[in-house]
């Protein structure tokens, strides 16, 4: 069964969105930039097709501005494709960047309810899961403190704990696992493994090659809005690393 299908999907932004890619990228790919300016639009995704089977864990790799986040936003349904078709089957749960949907002045407990409802549960459903969420976050002693006293990692833990208890069919993880401490990262990996066993489809955007290698069944490599490769993560990552060497030097496998 197919969970996510992109069929010749293109997404472009009017020219004034060009800066979203970052000036560095624009300058580095000057000919590309000029081409898209001439057309009056910036192609974030250009005729992209791929499929994810239900239960697959797939990593999206590629440099900044290659269209990974746009692809994620299309899956989440917050963006509309300009052409082509995006089919998504099941309930999606995006793992938010740090603190989105949270408020620093509210307590951990209040934030769990706020976040859970924003993500689509009713209040009662959140309250029913409250104990599990708290237990998973291991933040019991901070729960009635305002979020502003939490460390970065603790906020991430709280967010991840809410997200994984929403019982998603599809989990979208955009570069946020790295913030928790080692212990919590290990627990996240456990949870992700558990999700994989349960048949949850996971899309992971990460610049950590380790993470992609360890967690993903497959990887899709995006480059300037096109699919540059697709396949077994290890192989694809080494091809991707080679492509990047002349540009960014050996120390940085992916430009940050």
């Amino acid at each position, binding site marked *: 069964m197919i969970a996510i299908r992109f069929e010749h999907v293109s997404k472009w*932004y009017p020219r004034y*969105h060009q800066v979203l890619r970052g000036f560095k990228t624009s300058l580095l790919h000057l000919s590309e930039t000029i081409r898209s300016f001439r057309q009056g639009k910036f192609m974030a995704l250009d005729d992209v097709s791929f499929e994810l089977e239900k239960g697959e864990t797939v990593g999206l790799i590629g440099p900044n501005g290659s269209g990974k986040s746009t692809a994620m*936003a299309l899956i*989440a*349904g*917050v*963006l*509309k494709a300009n052409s082509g*078709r*995006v*089919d*998504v*089957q*099941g*309930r*999606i*749960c*995006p793992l*938010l*960047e740090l*603190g*989105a*949907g949270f*408020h620093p*002045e*509210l307590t951990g407990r*209040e934030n769990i*309810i*706020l976040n859970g*409802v*924003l*993500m*689509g*549960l*009713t*209040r009662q*459903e959140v309250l029913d899961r409250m104990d599990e969420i708290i237990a998973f976050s291991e933040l019991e002693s901070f729960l009635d403190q*305002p979020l502003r006293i939490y460390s970065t990692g603790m906020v991430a833990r709280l967010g991840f704990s809410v997200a994984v208890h*929403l019982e998603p069919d599809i989990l979208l993880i*955009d570069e946020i696992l790295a913030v928790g401490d080692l212990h919590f990262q290990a627990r996240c990996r456990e949870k992700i493994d558990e999700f994989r066993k349960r048949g949850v489809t996971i899309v992971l955007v990460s610049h950590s090659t380790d993470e992609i290698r360890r967690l993903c069944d497959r990887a899709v490599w995006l480059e300037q809005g096109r699919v540059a490769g697709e396949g077994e993560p290890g192989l694809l990552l080494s091809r991707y690393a080679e492509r990047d060497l002349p540009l960014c030097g050996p120390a940085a496998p992916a430009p940050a």
Partner: protein
Amino acid sequence: MAQRECGASRSMRNSQRTHGSYLKDLLFVLTQKEIKLRYKNTWLGYIWSVANPLAFALIYFIAFGIFMRVQIQNYPLFLIAGLFPWQWLAHSLSAAPNIFLANASLIKKVRFPSNVLVASTVLNAGIHFVFSIPVILGFLLAYGLVPSWSWLVGIPVFVLAQFMSVYGLALAIASLNLFFRDLDRLTSLVVTMLFFLTPIVYSSSMIPAQYQMFVYLNPVAPLMLGWQQLFLAGELNWSLIAASYLYALLFLGVGSLIYQKLSWKFAEVV
């Protein structure tokens, strides 16, 4: 077609009714958040929400009542009866341009009914207004007047009309501001202009006869006049109520239409 139940719970897919109860929960949680935030760091929260219109009433009383000698009976009371509901409108509309911007990170990632953010802002200001009605009552009693039973009908009637109007306007402003960021400045200017074009610091009877008709062209005047007559005279003026609802439906319609046409693009431009 694509099944996009972002976040929607399984049970929600089944019926409109459960979707309605989800929206109610979302509105509840967001409004609760606003109210909690207001009272979290300051136990004076309630005082502040009342002090602001009271301070303005005092200033206008000094400027217009004492210095310019505006002849209105119980002028401080008259000012308060208009300023309290006005504050609901003014607060909501001046907050409107930033509602979606302040939640950008959420709108970019999660598909949820973002108009509920606007509704909760307006509802929050409305709740503060309702809780300030006892202060109006207090002033009424201090001037030796008594409230009328018609309040029990009039307050819900005007609260609903004002909520619809303000929500519609705020939704339009919040949506359009993502595309034209200058709307922020324009809004505060228009709100100030509207304030002085609405009979709040002066009474509608002071307007020269040949301009009287223009009062009804001011879309918020029927509401404010309605509140004044209700609070001061205990009167339910049905033509004001009709006019208020006419504008309310208009604003609600226009606001919803604008939101509906633009909201799919929010994540791109926010």
